[in-house]
């Protein structure tokens, strides 16, 4: 059986230059879990999501090793780490998108504002309505811009034109798309440019008034200018929404996020304020990664 380990604040004590090596590589070698180095600042934060000892397997392959973290309310939290480290898997576990893959098994639980996510009694559809998600590739639906934005209202059966109009305008304004598309809301959303499509997808997520938003590498399919706009947008949403974001791009994490979690081969290695993670990380492995020595 796996040895269950919880967050160990004590790890914060390990700050000596000499033994800063946290032993992640050892844990990987032993196929064992790793105690996360959690920075103090996080203890003052109010959690919108709590992940407790979460394990996940794709068939026989284990992808997450006893991950525990809190997603602070109304803050932007970035998940960084090399490819295949489980960032996206963790993100997609929050709104149970991994349920769609039949081989996935999990252990442990997550809590969204006090409600268990993986409790057998949880209604997945209701749960997903409380969580907004934006994907790596813009995925507007094959319908008009307006219908895209109000999709989550439509599936709830909202028919009041006034409400739909209002939500549509507010959401589009929130992502700065209103001025660009207000005169062609009936056009197909597929005719927008890639960057506009991605902002539309964010607007679609916002329209559902989510308690938390998940962004899965929202800029990786976009050109630099569109990327800049999305990052600015994330900045604007900061403080209003709780955001959990996966990114490949370290600059993006450092520019756009309040907190950064570093993952490596299925383990959450270190989690703290972005500034600390990038400037004075507790662990040598984190430092090596953020300075580009490996990954």
């Amino acid at each position, binding site marked *: 059986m796996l040895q269950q380990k919880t967050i160990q604040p004590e790890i914060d004590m390990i700050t000596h230059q000499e033994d800063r090596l946290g032993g992640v590589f050892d844990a990987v070698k032993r196929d064992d879990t790793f105690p996360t180095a959690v920075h103090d600042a996080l203890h003052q934060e109010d959690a919108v999501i709590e992940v407790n000892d979460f394990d996940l397997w794709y068939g026989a392959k284990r992808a997450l090793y006893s991950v525990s973290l809190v997603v602070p309310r109304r803050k932007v939290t970035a998940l960084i780490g090399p490819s295949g480290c489980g960032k996206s898997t963790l993100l997609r576990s929050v*709104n149970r*998108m991994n349920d*769609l893959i039949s081989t996935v098994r999990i252990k442990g639980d997550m809590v969204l504002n006090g409600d268990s996510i993986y409790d057998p009694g949880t209604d997945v*559809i*209701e*749960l*997903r*309505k409380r*969580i*907004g*998600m934006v*994907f790596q*590739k813009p*995925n*507007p*639906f*094959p*319908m008009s811009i307006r219908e895209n934005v109000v*999709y*989550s209202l*439509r*599936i*709830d059966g909202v028919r009041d034109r006034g409400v739909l109009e209002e939500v549509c305008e507010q959401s589009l304004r929130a992502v700065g798309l209103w001025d660009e598309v207000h005169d062609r809301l009936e056009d*197909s959303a*597929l*005719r927008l440019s890639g960057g506009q499509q991605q902002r539309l*997808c964010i607007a*679609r*997520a916002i329209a*559902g008034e989510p308690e938390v938003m998940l962004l899965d590498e929202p800029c990786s399919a976009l050109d630099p200018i569109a990327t800049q706009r999305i990052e600015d947008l994330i900045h604007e949403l900061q403080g209003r929404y709780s955001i959990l974001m996966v990114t490949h791009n370290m600059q993006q994490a450092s520019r756009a996020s309040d907190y950064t979690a570093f993952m490596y081969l299925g383990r959450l290695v270190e989690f703290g304020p972005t500034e600390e993670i990038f400037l004075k990380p507790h662990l040598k492995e984190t430092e090596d990664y953020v300075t580009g020595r490996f990954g």
Partner: protein
Amino acid sequence: MSSRRRVSSLFARGEPMVWLTGAALVVCLLMIAGLLTIVIYNGASTFWPKPLTQLTTHHGKTYLGEESQNEDYNPATAAVADWVPAKKRPAPEASVRRRMYRTGNYEVFNTHFTWLSDYEIAEEFEPRWGIVVERQEWGRFYGKPHAFHVDGKPVANEPAAVWARFEELHESVRARREAAGELNDNDLNDHENDARLERTSARLKDGADSDEWREADKVLQSVRKRAEEERIAIRRKTQAMQAENDRYELIVMMADGETKALKLADIVRAYLPNQLSLGEKWGVYLSRWGEFLSDNPREANSEGGVFPAIFGTIIMTLIMSILVVPFGVLAALYLREYAKQGTLVSIVRIAVNNLAGVPSIVFGVFGLGFFCYFVGVGIDDLLFPARVAENTPTFGKGGILWASLTLALLTLPVVIMATEEAISAVPHSMREGSYACGASKWQTIRKIVLPRAAPGIMTGMILAIARGAGEVAPLMLVGAVKLAPDLPMDGSFPFVHPERSFMHLGFHIYDLGFQSPNSKAAEPMVFTTTMLLIGIVVLLNLVALWVRARLRRQFEAG
């Protein structure tokens, strides 16, 4: 070493493959172009008025007719000796042209066509007053206008005067004939049938000689009596009209000098082909097309129109599409979206694909056995016991509904396959996006998958229409008939008659080409009908293509 390199580089460049693939395409295009050319050339020229030729042989026999085809052949020496004076004989074994003339006048000659060899002919010319008379019965009559009789007395003797009389009176006589035909009221028969069925029902329910039966019998007798009275009144009226029509006769002189009186009312159309201007030729041509497209057939389908067949084809195809698309889409949705992908689903998929390769006549046999004899007879026993007792099945025989269902079954695999392909081509990211918004599986299918797959589903429908509209073999078993003047939709209650037999263009072509007692005369109609069928299939497809293009535009970027 170097030679080996050269060989491989030739294939690497792919020159031979370009030629091979190009040639294959050219062969395909040539075949399609050839087929269309033959059908359209023959089909479009059928109704064009041809000149009338009068021919005299060396033996002094005269013929009058329209040339319908010619060919080169080697006449038997004996036959040549028979026709031609010795000095004019061709060299033995020489190839000679012979022409086939449509000489009509079937009741006189007992044939519609005559072959004449060039060597047989002493004289030929196009008589200025040659007349072509298309009749209600017996086919065409060729001759010269000889006289015009009113009440059996000649009122005109000169061809020009006769023709003027004919043109003056023909239209009103035809109109009167049509009016008399419309007086025949089908409602009378319907009422009588209903009353009789009531009586049969009473017999089945309460036994013969019961009070109910006697009551129904009384009603029937009174209905019959009233119907009979009305029929007599109608007959009196139509007889008066007919008597008026019978006063007018066109006397036509045949090439051999004999005359024949033709009742004006029986003449559909007459014209003087050798005097027609180009505009008048177009007039005859278009009027024949009009008749072809809008009238009922006559003369064992070889003349007149094909309107019931056009109507039957289109209605059957539409009913088939309405039946097959929802069924196919639902089945494909289950296979692709709900069923757990595994061996069983693979087997089902292979079975469905193989169903597309089953010969269509097999579906016809199934349709006859299942729809007509099982479902249909069941419906009849349940709903129309009186008709069963009278041995006139309603649903328990071939009908347009059963034909449509059979074809729906036949085209189902096409729709399922196309839909499956379209559904699986919907990007996974779109479904994920929908699920992430909190949509259920069905909401995702209805709002994302189906709209996005709609153009692909339309493709399946187009293929189904193309296959279904042209299918003939199964229809012969489940409801297509040679002649069905009662359309499956008309003004008599309940307006839609899914149980009725119907005419179908494909079956009509088969019937004209192989079942006609006068197949030579029907041959041009085979091409014209084929052209029409191709045209209708193309038209139905164009509509579907247009719808698909509209759907696609909705989802296309840029």
